[in-house]
């Protein structure tokens, strides 16, 4: 738990904000896929913290980013915070994306604000000398973000929108499938974050192509550190796993998404 100063809190797309925090511990220790558990108010309502994936960590500046979509009370309060204000955060928490084995091509699949942790991942892959492909989907053009960052990291980026206003009309999982079909011999690993339907589809594709996929899941969270059993996801082996502690990133085969 620390009090982190807000450096920046800016709209990057329609109802999507980037929030930058001065947070040395996060900047130094965070892995892509981990999250911050953020207190939106001091008061008793909304009671719970809100989890957000870390979208970037800048070790030199001692800062870290989250990118969030305004969907309800907590994120709406967040969007009104100004630089200079202080945010109470816990983290980095959870288990992030494992780096690919040498010689494996990273394929990134992101949907909507689920692109956030994948930006951080792309940067870290790039630092490790790895580049790959990114398939990104958004509802509509004005909600798209992040393309340039993937490109800066050396990724080739393909985009879809649900309504066809930007990139191809359709879903990024279709691009993934097409790519895998066309590149049969490639040894790939998939990293995905986005709506449940997207994750489900990625899992299906990974199974059918026999490749490894890592999915970042979402579940409502209480404690964020494994103490309350609130963030259960069905384990493939029976019983439940904790999204906050065993995840949020899981190998697709570990969990039952639906």
């Amino acid at each position: 738990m620390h009090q982190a100063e807000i450096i920046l809190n800016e709209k990057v797309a329609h109802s999507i904000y980037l929030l930058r925090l001065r947070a040395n511990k996060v900047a130094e220790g965070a892995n892509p896929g981990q999250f911050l558990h953020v207190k939106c108010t001091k008061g008793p309502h909304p009671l719970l913290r809100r989890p957000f994936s870390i979208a970037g960590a800048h070790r030199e500046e001692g800062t870290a980013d989250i990118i969030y979509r305004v969907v309800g009370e907590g994120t709406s309060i967040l969007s009104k915070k100004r630089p200079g204000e202080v945010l109470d955060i816990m983290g980095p928490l959870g288990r992030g994306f494992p780096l690919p084995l040498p010689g494996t091509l990273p394929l990134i699949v992101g949907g909507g604000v689920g692109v956030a942790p994948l930006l951080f991942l792309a940067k870290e892959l790039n630092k490790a000398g790895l580049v790959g492909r990114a398939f990104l989907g958004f509802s509509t053009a004005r909600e798209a973000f992040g393309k340039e960052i993937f490109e800066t990291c050396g990724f080739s980026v393909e985009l879809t929108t649900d309504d066809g206003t930007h990139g191809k009309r359709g879903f990024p999982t279709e691009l993934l499938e097409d790519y895998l079909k066309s590149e049969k011999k490639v040894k790939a690993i998939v990293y995905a974050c986005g709506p449940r339907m997207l994750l489900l589809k990625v899992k299906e594709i990974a199974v059918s192509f026999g490749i490894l996929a890592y999915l970042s899941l979402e579940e409502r969270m209480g404690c964020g550190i494994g103490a309350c059993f609130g963030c259960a996801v069905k384990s493939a082996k029976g019983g439940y796993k904790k999204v906050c502690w065993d995840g949020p990133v899981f190998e697709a085969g570990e969990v039952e998404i639906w």
Partner: protein
Amino acid sequence: MVDLSVKIAGICLKNPVMVASGTFGFAREYSRMFDVNELGAVVTKGITLLPKEGNPPPRLFETTAGLLNSVGLENPGVEGFIRDEWPYLKTLQVPVIVNIAGETVEEYRRITQCLSPLEGISALEVNISCPNVEKGGMAFGRHPDSAYEVVRAVKEQSPFPVIAKLSPNVSDIREIALAVEEAGADAVSLINTILGMAVDVEKKRPVFKRVFAGLSGPAVKPIALRMVYEVYEAVRIPVIGMGGIFSWRDAVEFILAGASAVAVGSAIFSDPVAPLKIIRGLEDYAARNLQTRISDLVGLAHRNAAEF
């Protein structure tokens, strides 16, 4: 200097602020964040005889200033607890209270037997009030006779003091408190969560698969406080108060209403060190009010109510 220590059910607590069962795991999780030995006592997640899977997600849902949970007592079972959690817990320098639950009286009896050899358990908290399970749990806590039976069974087997954790989902909580006192409980703790629910207006169905879930958090505080006040007048054993405690002020309200100790639950999710802040707040409050012993404040609202 304020003396914050209190004595409940034969256990000495260096301060009256405990954590509420189910919100603090097995202490190890939070020990990574702060020194849990600063707490008055640690209360574990509810333990059952056999491991329990718990309920399907979603298990949590936020309401206005409240939290609905349908965890369903997911826990490793008493053996798993002894094997995986107890080794850490027994190293703590504060009292450890183990919360237990069962589907039958026999299960409560057997889990008590399993725990009996563990030196270092300070007390058992008998959960007869969990609303999130198919069988047992709250069913016992809603009737004086069954509440009596469970607590009696545990008390007969237990080498440790026994705390009965009461359900608020009753017409008259004093009846239940009297029954468990009669059964030999050394203290009562209250309240467990209140039965509530939420509906998903988009999906047009209950948010939770089990439909009902347990409400906790600041929303329930006025109700919890009233029940503590009622129970304090009804029984002679000490009362541990909880339900929506968020700040030291809330804790003081419970103490004045008759709680010898308090437990902080859902507020921990908002602020993991809330219990520590509350301890400091209590100390300041007592000092400001020229009390040298926090225990002198217990139930004071009753005496003052009579005069006003």
